[in-house]
């Protein structure tokens, strides 16, 4: 620095001096020539950024395209379209809603006529040929399936002489399974048949269309009355008739139950539980669960305190449990039969049953009469809307002569050519309301999908309720209790591979095991040839109890002392214990299969109830299907709980179970929720197994009811995924139903999104609570 001479030492700071002279040669010398020191591309990493960005963009484009098409197509379906009236060159008049337009290659025979038409440069409507001079055709939805057969028609536009939009053009959405009706509304009239039933009916016009204004304004109140009548009929036939039927059925069940019990008592057999005592089943299930909980708690406490309780004491306790369970079994199964009634008593019961059923039948008849009366009044009000081409009304059947349709058969009346924008929005929203909250009509191609949504949501919730505990318990055992060795690795690989099994295989398994084996057992009890005598059964039960005690004993004496290695004998004892537990499990199944005490939940009922496809079995099948997802996610989450946290808990004197319950599980909860979200998404979107184990084309009754047990999970249900398949590919009128596929898909996506958002919200809450930002 000494050699530097500063012109103005007062202003010049030291670093200026450094930059100007002192350090520059040094810098150059250190770096050398810049070319040789260039960072290689591989070290810079920009290409990787571009590559990853590109891959992500492709993914996003695909997802956005899929969602975009779904949203676009799904949301435009219900927008009211105008009705065109086409006058064809051959004199036909066609009314319809344009759906799609395309150019086409005309047939050989038509080519000359088309060329001549084009040469004239007149005589065809604008748009009949596209810019390249190719002929264009439009798909019109023409409705009126009763008289046309085909509700859609491709119309070559060069054959059209003129088009117009009549204000009177009317679109009727009907509830009579024939689909749309398009025509020109004329009038509404009342036809009263003469009392004798002969002679022509007396006709009075209630409302008539004015030219250019349509009919709707004048008949809206009439239509309201008609809809009310339709609603009354629905309430009567579904609600009241249904209730009477249920009561009849219950009376019959009770009587049959009594008869069966009497017969059983006569034959010297023990009494059995039937479906009529559903509350007894409930009490028994709750009791069993409580006993299992208490026992588990007790066992956990004992396992946690290896020192304070000696093996012998624990053996005594488990033997006591076996004896207690045995005593409870004896008390329940060998209880004194109350069903030993005399012939007279049975006869009295039968008389009572007959009287009751007569009374109910009378009530049924009166409801039917009321329905008939309303229906007759309803049949008087007729609507005259003529088909544009033929001038016909809608025939009630294809063979009967034409007859104007009832006003009440019209669900929605749209005069699209008169609608303002606000009116269109109104129709659009009303159609959405109907779609989401009503039942399907016309083989699922019209109406709503409420039962479908209900079935899907119920299935998804039930599935997660079933799969999460199962998966969490399995993962807990695998990660916390099992010895991490070859065996557990094999199990883990198997679980992971289960995720790759085609879902239809799960469906086949579910049908075979849940529906036809487990369900049939619940319905009918064990197969008659498998049932053993009471003596043999009790001998087996005592044997099983001894086997359990033996297994417990082997386990207790085979456990190594804390801090010590297991001896060879102890290892053998543990193996023996495991094998004995397996034998005990097999024994339980054997006892259930051979029991002379269970005669089926629905023994006297001819039709299968549980032994057929239903929501419960579908949920169980799907929970098997999604189990690997939950197990893997839970295992990861449990493994991610810091070791220091566990040690802290153990250091406070917590047992293993207390540590798991208070530290590991809460901390792993967000991860478990992730598993649940994945399982729910997969379960809600699954179709193939559901086709086998429960989803059906039409099951408009919801699975809830006012009569016990309130939730009928044994019934089959409707599912959105299956509904999409059914409407899109199994529908008799797939062209008409296709737009509904989009809307249904949109609804399914929205439901999955909603369920996931709810779960994600809960997970975020849990995460901030249990994991926090500190780590």
């Amino acid at each position, binding site marked *: 620095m000494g050699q530097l001479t500063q012109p103005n030492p007062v202003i010049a700071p030291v670093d200026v001096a450094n930059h100007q002279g002192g350090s520059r040669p040094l810098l150059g010398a250190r770096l050398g020539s810049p070319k040789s020191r260039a960072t290689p591309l591989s070290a810079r990493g920009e290409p990787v950024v571009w590559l990853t960005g590109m891959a992500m963009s492709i993914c996003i484009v695909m997802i956005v395209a899929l969602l975009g098409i779904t949203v676009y197509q799904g949301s435009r379906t219900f927008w009211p379209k105008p009705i065109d009236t086409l006058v064809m060159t051959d004199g036909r008049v066609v009314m319809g809603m344009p759906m799609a337009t395309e150019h086409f290659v005309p047939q050989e025979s038509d080519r000359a006529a088309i060329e001549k038409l084009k040469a004239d440069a007149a005589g065809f409507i604008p748009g009949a040929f596209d810019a390249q001079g190719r002929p264009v055709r439009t798909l019109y939805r023409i409705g009126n399936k009763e008289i046309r057969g085909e509700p859609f028609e491709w119309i070559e536009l060069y054959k059209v002489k003129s088009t117009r939009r009549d204000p009177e053009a009317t679109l009727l959405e009907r509830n009579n399974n024939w689909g749309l009706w398009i025509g020109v509304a004329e009038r509404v009239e009342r036809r009263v048949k003469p009392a004798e039933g002969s002679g022509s009916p007396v006709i009075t016009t209630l409302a008539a269309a004015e030219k250019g204004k349509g009919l709707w304004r004048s008949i809206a109140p009439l239509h309201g009355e008609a809809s009310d009548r339709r609603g009354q009929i629905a309430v009567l036939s579904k609600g009241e008739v249904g209730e009477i039927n249920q009561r009849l059925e219950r009376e019959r069940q009770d009587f049959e139950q009594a008869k069966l019990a009497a017969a059983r008592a006569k034959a010297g057999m023990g009494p059995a539980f039937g479906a009529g005592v559903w509350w007894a089943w409930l009490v028994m299930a709750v009791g069993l669960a409580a006993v299992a909980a208490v026992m588990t708690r007790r066992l956990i406490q004992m396992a946690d305190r290896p020192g304070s309780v000696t093996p012998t004491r624990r053996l005594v306790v488990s033997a006591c449990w076996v004896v207690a369970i045995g005593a409870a079994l004896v008390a329940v199964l060998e209880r004194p039969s109350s069903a030993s009634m005399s012939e007279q008593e049975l006869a009295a019961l039968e008389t009572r049953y007959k009287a009751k059923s007569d009374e109910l039948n009378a009530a049924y008849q009166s409801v039917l009469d009321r329905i008939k009366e309303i229906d007759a009044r309803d049949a008087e009000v007729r609507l005259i809307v003529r088909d544009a081409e033929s001038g016909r009304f809608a025939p009630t059947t294809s063979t009967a002569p034409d007859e104007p349709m009832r006003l009440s058969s019209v669900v929605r009346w749209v005069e699209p050519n008169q609608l303002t924008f606000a009116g269109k929005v109104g129709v659009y929203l009303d159609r959405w309301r109907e779609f989401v909250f009503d039942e399907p009509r016309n083989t699922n191609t019209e109406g709503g999908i409420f039962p479908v949504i209900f079935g899907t949501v119920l299935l998804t919730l039930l599935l997660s309720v079933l799969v999460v505990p199962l998966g969490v318990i399995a993962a807990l055992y695998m990660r916390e209790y099992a010895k991490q060795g070859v065996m557990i690795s094999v199990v883990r690989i198997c679980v992971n591979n289960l995720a790759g099994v085609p879902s239809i295989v799960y469906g086949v398994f579910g049908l075979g095991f849940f529906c036809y084996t487990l369900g049939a057992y619940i319905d009918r009890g064990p197969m008659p040839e498998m049932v053993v005598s009471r003596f043999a059964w009790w001998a087996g039960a005592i044997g099983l109890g001894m086997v359990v005690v033996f297994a417990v004993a082997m386990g207790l004496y085979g456990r190594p002392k804390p801090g010590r290695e297991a001896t060879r004998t102890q290892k053998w004892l543990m193996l023996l214990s495991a094998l004995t537990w397996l034998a005990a499990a097999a024994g339980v199944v054997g006892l259930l299969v051979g029991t002379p005490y269970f005669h089926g939940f629905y023994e006297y009922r001819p039709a299968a109830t549980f032994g057929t496809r239903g929501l419960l079995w579908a949920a169980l099948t799907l929970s098997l299907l999604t189990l690997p997802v939950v197990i893997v996610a839970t295992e990861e989450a449990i493994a991610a709980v810091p070791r220091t946290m566990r040690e802290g808990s153990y250091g*406070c004197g917590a047992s293993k179970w207390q540590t798991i319950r208070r530290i590991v599980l809460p901390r792993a909860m967000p991860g478990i929720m992730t598993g649940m979200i994945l399982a729910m998404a997969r379960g809600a979107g699954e179709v193939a197994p559901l086709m086998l184990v429960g989803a059906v084309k039409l099951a408009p009754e919801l699975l809830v009811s006012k009569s016990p047990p309130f939730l009928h999970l044994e019934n089959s249900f409707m599912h959105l995924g299956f509904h999409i398949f059914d409407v899109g590919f199994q529908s008799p009128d797939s062209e008409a139903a296709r737009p509904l596929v989009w809307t249904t898909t949109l609804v399914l996506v929205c439901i999955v999104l909603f369920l996931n958002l709810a779960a994600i919200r809960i997970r975020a809450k849990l995460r901030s609570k249990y994991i*926090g930002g500190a780590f």
Partner: protein
Amino acid sequence: MDAPTKHNSNARGSGPGEGGEEVTRATILPKGPGNEDPTAATLIPLNAPVAVPVESAPTGRVSSGSPAMASGIEAIREGRPFEPRIHKEVAQHEPVVRAEKFDLFYSGKQALHGINMDFPRNKVTALIGPSGCGKSTLLRSINRLNDLVDGVRTQGEIFINNLPVYAPDVDVIDLRKRIGMVFQKSNPFPMSIFENVVYPLRIDGERRKGVLAEACEKSLRAAALWDEVKDRLKDSALALSGGQQQRLCIARAISAEPEVLLMDEPCSALDPIATLKIEELIHDIAGRYTVIIVTHNMHQAARVSDFTAFMYLGRLVEYGKTAAIFQRPQLPETEQYVTGRFG
């Protein structure tokens, strides 16, 4: 004569209380012809000139600059028996925890070699030593936390208030309830501050709200955290700062009134201010609890502890009053470690 020697001889000559007259030092003679029996340790009075011939190994006293290992260090490294030096002051206090010939093996590898140690009641005992010397292992053996590690085997016995820890019929859960433990990394549980503090009581089945609240306040006050968190006891403990979390862990460890408080490098993950607070805290609770603290920081050991034990490679080397260990160690090995010449 170099400095350590001078120091040592000074220490020995400083007074009758400090004297090592009856303290003996064991040094094994090197293996050689006629001296094959490894147990044939020769006991040499400390004040006798140490002139054990050691083949090619430098003795504890080296004349010039490059510090060589003391002979005991060599002996430990080569796996030869080594008799630790335990000052007689330790025996003057009533022991709470006592280790007797305690060995511990991690899947066959021995991590602790015949530890014989008493931890005095209501005193702070520091365990120091280089990494891998087994101080944490010893600490975790006291509440049997090593049971959680696969393949751990033990020999010998540890007593807490004369109750054997490793007896086959001991209730490990109950044992751990009587011992509080604070870990190297603060490990608050994923629950509220209140629930964290009363966790040991909760798992003991305590449900009375009054008892829990009282214990919570008492422990938090003892851990000097009460004023900082008293208004947000229901908030998540994970939102606290690192130092607060560690004090929370101390509050948790003492909430069940343990007989012994084990601390495994409680300040190693904290900044100096937080460390200072924890050290003050240890100082405050020292009179009421028996504290055993493992630390890497010798200054910390000197500041907070009443007794200090120096361990090396799974063996106890020297154990005595903290002042004695740091200022007048009786073994050259200890002196070399506390003066930072190895480890």
